[in-house]
């Protein structure tokens, strides 16, 4: 080991130590917990703790609510990612147009929801979605559409929360896309226009390839984010009505921190980890094929 190597290790040692202590070690311990029946009885007396092998995982697979939670989470991700990314991209394209004035003002206003407190905004949106007094139902009534019990109907609760989530988070990717769009070569765009490419053709063959890597990264982060969705259903509906907005993470929180079945909850965490890993691998493959990464 040279002097330089030593110095390098010395500099990274504190960070590595912290990562090992607060990330690697807890992850390994959680994996260990997932093969035990740690519950409130073990909290009372360690001698009640038993090694159960894959018991927690087998029990999970036969728990209807777990499958329900997986289904709800996939629904959140499947609908939410296109909604959020689509809105971000659409707004970024709008703001990118040369005719738009006061761009910084619009950017700040549209980004603002992202940095507001989730609980405060959820309270506002709960009122907006209220079946009797909500502004959304008033607006629907003006269009001649019958009022919806947005948060009280198991079929509309996920779309309602997704509308709120999209409003809350689209600003972040909008800023990212705005940055990516400014890197689209203007001469290429100009040439395409002179060759008579349509608006869609220019978007498809000039803009999209240029922002492809950014789009992939944003999608990857969004999928990972939506698979871990928790706070929004927690403050909007408490996982209801009829557990229609209980997500995997919500299920894990309930098992682990509400009822202290940490063995079971760790098993859920492990399953979630595998899910996110799988999605990320698939997305990376797609990215590699298009030579974006």
């Amino acid at each position, binding site marked *: 080991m040279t*002097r330089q190597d030593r*110095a390098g290790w*010395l*500099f990274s*040692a*504190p960070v590595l130590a912290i990562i090992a202590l607060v990330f690697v070690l807890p992850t390994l311990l959680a994996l260990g917990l997932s093969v035990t*029946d740690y*519950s*409130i*009885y073990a*909290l*009372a*007396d360690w001698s*009640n703790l038993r090694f159960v092998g894959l018991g927690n995982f087998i*029990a999970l697979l036969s728990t*209807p609510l777990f499958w329900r939670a997986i289904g709800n989470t996939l629904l959140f991700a499947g609908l939410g990612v296109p909604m959020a990314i689509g809105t971000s991209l659409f707004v970024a394209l709008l703001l990118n147009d040369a005719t738009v004035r006061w761009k910084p003002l619009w950017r700040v206003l549209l980004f603002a929801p992202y940095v507001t407190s989730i609980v405060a905004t959820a309270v506002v949106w*709960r*009122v907006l979605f*209220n*079946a009797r007094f909500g502004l959304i139902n008033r607006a629907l009534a003006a269009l001649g559409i019958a009022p919806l019990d947005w*948060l*009280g109907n*198991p079929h509309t609760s996920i779309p309602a929360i997704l509308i709120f989530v999209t409003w809350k988070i689209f600003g972040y990717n909008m800023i990212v896309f705005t940055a990516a769009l400014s890197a689209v070569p203007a001469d290429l765009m100009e040439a395409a226009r002179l060759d008579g490419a349509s608006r869609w053709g220019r978007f498809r063959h000039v803009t999209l390839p240029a922002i492809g890597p950014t789009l992939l990264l944003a999608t990857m982060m969004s999928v990972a984010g939506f698979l871990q969705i928790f706070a929004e259903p927690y403050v*909007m*509906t*408490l996982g*209801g*009505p*009829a*557990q229609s907005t209980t997500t995997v993470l919500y299920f894990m929180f309930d098992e682990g*921190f*509400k*009822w*202290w079945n940490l063995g079971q909850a760790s098993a859920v965490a492990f399953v979630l980890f595998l899910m996110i890993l799988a999605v990320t691998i698939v997305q990376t493959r797609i990215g590699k094929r298009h030579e974006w990464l």
Partner: protein
Amino acid sequence: MEGLGSTASGWTRRDALGLIPALGLVPVAGCAGSDAVPGDRDKASPLTMWAMSWEGDYSPLLMPDFTAATGIPVEVQSLPTTASHEKLLTAFAGGAMPDVLMLFNGWVQEFATIGAVQPVPSPALVADIFPGVLDATRFGGRDYAVPWSVAPQVQFYRRDILHDAGYDAPPESWDGWRTMARAIKRRRPDDYVFLMLLNWPTGLITMLSQAGATMLRDRNTRGNFQTPEARAAFAYYASLYADGYAPMALSTEIQDPVAAFATGYCSIWPSGPTTLKDFERRADLIPRHRWATARLAGPQGAGPVSGLSSSLCVSSQTRRPREAWALVRHLTSVPSELRYQRLIGNLPARMGAWRAPQLADPVLRPFARQMQQPAAAPPVIEWERIQAEIQLAAERVVRKVQTLDVALAALDNRVDRLLAKRRALVEAGAIG
């Protein structure tokens, strides 16, 4: 090559920079040092206490007397009721319990089992308490909590709306309730009658105990919900929603139940004494002459009813048990309980306090009569969770996601699994 920052003393810049990470260790060492000297700081530092509901908000008003008498300052933290169970468990696991804590009576056995609370040191502290109350706070033959207030559920009703429908007071039987609801609904088709939120289990649990359902069997190790009694209670509960007498809403939807009652959206509200304070605080919205109380209706007349009675416990992690028990003694004394009754309307757990004239108010009479007939919850530490599962099963029936039979079978199955660990321990003879 030389001169890369080397100086006469032999120090290089790199050497100096290399020491920077070591600086990170200094604060750590500093913390360890300050922790090693307890002693004096404790004397001046306040006792900590956690409480929920109005008790949490108003307890600081009871503290000046205690501090004046003993010289011990007290710091009260108010916990939101819905998040308190998990917060208390997490605090215990993390070694961050307060000195004194309020528990709902149904939680005392759970916290005693995990060793989070201390046994009551003197029988005098739990003397003169309503009958049946101490059964809930006793574990292995010892008392673990001093009952603070009793909170049976009663029905709060709108006198004006019931009067219009031809009733001076609400009936005390299930059939009578339904007849009255039909009369009210006919006059007010856009409103509802019963304010029973779909994620709040007390109403259904009360119906189950009134119907005589024993909710657990085999020494409380298995669910027992496929019985005629449980079926009757579930069916009656669900029918109130199916007939449009109760709104299908969670607490996240009806964010202001007092306003829902005051506007006549609902005219019967099964609730506990905390509602007395809710109404007093908002008397401009719901004037005193518009409402009254009566005992809850049962299948054949009023019966045993559950509620959220509360107790005070001392944490097993406290370093000042003597002072903590002194605080509990102060807060549960008859004068304190009466003062509290005036402040927030909660009802004294000590029978002696009920001789005071302030408790002769006719609004309180249904509570007092109900206290003679308390409902006992099964003594298992999973009970809080089982209640949540019962309510979820009921919600599925009400929303027609499942039929009654399927939901009850699924509930039994679910409760059996929740009790699996307990069953193993009971069979091994580890617990009773």
